[in-house]
């Protein structure tokens, strides 16, 4: 069946199966920044923004998303690049598999929370698992990014 999505600002008509999850749809249509790490909304690497709010695309039916706005890392290239310089400066870069989703979530958080505390940042990002960095470098980087850009 066909659904309509606004992906990164562009209207798209996509062919999907009724039981298809958004993660598969997006990867099928070459939005490859969206990664698969599990299938139970528990790792966060498939995060995309639905009307600006983070969701786990691995567990979100594509037909349910029809008519909505989807943002992937391909849609926030400038911000992702900017956030990455902070990661680079804090030794927070490693395999990068969690990073496009993390950049999206930080981007959403920045619009949602003004001046969040360390604890609020961790709460907001708790669903974004990372097995490489040990998190503390990411936290330093995100702190610095927010301080410089808020």
């Amino acid at each position, binding site marked *: 069946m066909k659904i309509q999505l606004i992906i990164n600002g562009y209207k798209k008509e996509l062919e999907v*199966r009724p039981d298809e999850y958004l993660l598969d749809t997006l990867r099928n249509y070459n939005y*490859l*920044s*969206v*990664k*698969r*790490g*599990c*299938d*139970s909304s*528990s*790792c966060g*690497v498939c995060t995309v923004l639905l009307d600006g709010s983070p969701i786990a695309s691995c567990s979100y039916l594509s037909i349910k998303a029809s008519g909505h706005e989807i943002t*992937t*890392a*391909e849609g926030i*290239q400038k911000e*992702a*690049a900017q*956030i*990455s*310089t902070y*990661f*680079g*400066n*804090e*030794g*927070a*870069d*490693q*395999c*990068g*598999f*969690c*990073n*496009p989703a*993390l*950049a999206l979530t930080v981007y959403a958080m920045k619009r949602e929370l003004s001046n969040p505390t*360390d604890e609020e940042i*961790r*709460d907001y*990002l*708790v669903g*974004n*698992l*990372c*097995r*490489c*960095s*040990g*998190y*503390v*470098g*990411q*936290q330093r980087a995100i702190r610095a990014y927010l301080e410089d850009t808020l």
Partner: protein
Amino acid sequence: MKNVNRGLPSIDGKGLMMGIPAYTDDLADANSLIIKVLRSPHPFAKINKIDTNRASEINGVECVLTYKDFKRIPITRAGQGYPEPSPHDKFILDNYVRYIGDEVAVVAAVDLQTAEKAIKLIEVDYKVLEPVLDFEVAYDNKTIIHDEPEIHEMFPIGFEPKKNVAAAYDMHVGNIDETLKNCDVVYEASFYTQAQAHVMMEPHTANARIDCYGRLVIYSSTQTPYHVRRIISQALQYPLSKIRVIKPRVGGGFGGKQCIHGEFFVSAVTLKTGKPSKLVYTRKEVFESSFSRHPMRFDVKLGATKKGILKGIDVSVLSDTGAYGEHALTVFMVAGAKVLPLYNKVDAVRFGGKVVYTNHTPAGAFRGYGAIQGNYALESAIDMLCEKLSIDPIIFREKNMIKEGESSPIFKIMGEGTEGIEMNVESCKLDYCVKRGHELINWKDKYPFVNGENSKVRGVGMAIAMQGSGIPYIDMASAMIKLNDDGFYNLIIGATDIGQGSDTILAQIAAEVLETDLDKMIVYSSDTDLAPFDCGAYASSTTYVSGNAVVKAAKNMRKMLIKEGARSLDVKEEEIIFDGVLFQTEDGKKSITLSELSNRLFYSEDQQQLVATNSYVGTKSPPPFMAGYVEVEVDTETGVVKVIDYTAVVDCGTTINPLLALGQVEGALAQGIGMTLYEEVLYNQKGGLITNNLMTYRIPTRKEITNMNVEFADSYEETGPYGAKSVGEIGIDTPPAAICNAIYNAVGVRIQSLPVTAENVLMGILKNKEKRNEK
């Protein structure tokens, strides 16, 4: 120095955060057949009959493979030196299944739905056999897990399959029984470590295609592309020369991708159908059907004099390799080889035991590779011995631990799977690490404990650790540097970047030798057709072994450049001064830029392509060292333990990139803390994995890991590239012992079995209370 010992961002960090397609599945052919694997529901069974007719008949199913489709060739999936010190005890597919999740059959279909449908239609008649689910009864059990006649060891590793023994090892120095008898104080205890899952964020992924030259091209999320090529060739009896393995960006490995996984199946399917195919493990498959950390039991005896001189260490180990013996012997040996030399002044050491098969998910390589298990046992026991002696555990360690310039007989006796190499530790700032950590965590005000709010008590604990830098005389790495017109270079390396940043630090090293900017050193790595050999990313070898290969290759290039510079200026080589940009004579009268020279070499005179190649194999494995200090908070009402602060002072020589080294240590500490407090692979009584998703298997989130304080000691390893040793694993080793020591210091409860659970801590607290009341 402008490129090394400098914290630069990793060269791919930005692109990866922007989501540029770079990982294995991002690069799969869009028309790939989708592969699904039928997996065993039984921990141990013989396949009496397998009927694939109904599955094969479905429209869209391109091929169904069972054991009948493969030649019976025993292999090991362990990616390590060849011949491997792991038993060849695995067939791509077999008529026996040995754990729940073991492979039974493989389906390739046009899409996932069809493949999943076909999988369900394969009919298997199993003869269910009695499994071995407890590693402490595996030895000489009436169930023999590997009874197949073809399996074998490549050289003596103590392989005794009829007794469920994958490998065995024993060594001793001096007379331990005699030594312990003469000690004033002896401490004896057993410790258990659990299986841990790697949980790299990118699941095991592979895809294959036939290229226009008719060759098999495999993309794989692997740590060892060259071993993949060799093992695939052996297992499928397909010429090595017709296989190309490409490792794209990898989403984490930690040892979990050091073993072969889906590469067999994509290769077999693509060779059979001629069509591209791909396989991405589900998270359940990653948990159930890849590898985990070897669980171990340690029986430890330590003896010392009243004055606090450690005299003897006696360690007997039992290790559980699960259904197959990948890395069985080497992980076992590292539990001694990279732990025991910490206390090099003892009169006697004994270390030995067995690695047994069980019908659980196989164990394999995992960061720390035995050292974390051994460290937990020894460093816990040392603290208990100190308590018996009434000696401060830090003073005790300072007295007994290894120091710069010293050696240990262990280095010579124990290697990885074979004998080791005699060496002195020329760089060892362990004494500084211990002192500095002591200061940073403010030990003197906090030891052993401070009462916190309400029912909470805060305690501090510590442990020291060492690892290695590659495997001497076995692990080889090589590098190739090519000059381009306009004066920039390609650095082409076999080294395998799995997220740890090796592409970046190796480029930094090459740029340093050639005095150029990092962005003029273009890296391409891990492609078996295009890059020179490198054993891969394991054994903490990349910085040291691959780094040294890069230094050598870059020095060759420098020589070539000076020769050509001199020729172009018509002077002698000795007269040339080259600063990375300009060649000139001492008097400055004659000069040519690198850019001009390279253009000349390409287009006008003395035309030639300059390529420099070199390789390196270590003659020693200088250990990185560290001291780990932790402050924990124990809730005496609930038993819940929280890490308040983890302080690590690390001697990994001079870091090539302090920022990336920092990330290595922080990430490893988090995995070590995870293993200590949160993570455990659990099975039910039938041998089924309970922890087969990320909700039942919990890795730390950013809520649990909040405070770390990592520093590097000022250290320089003469034999390392620009003074560096490796740093990939050392960070994971101390958390189990340090945290358990801190818990003991806080509430007097000794945890002898990992992970630490609130129940165990609380039970210990209650027991202590009872004892006090009795008094």
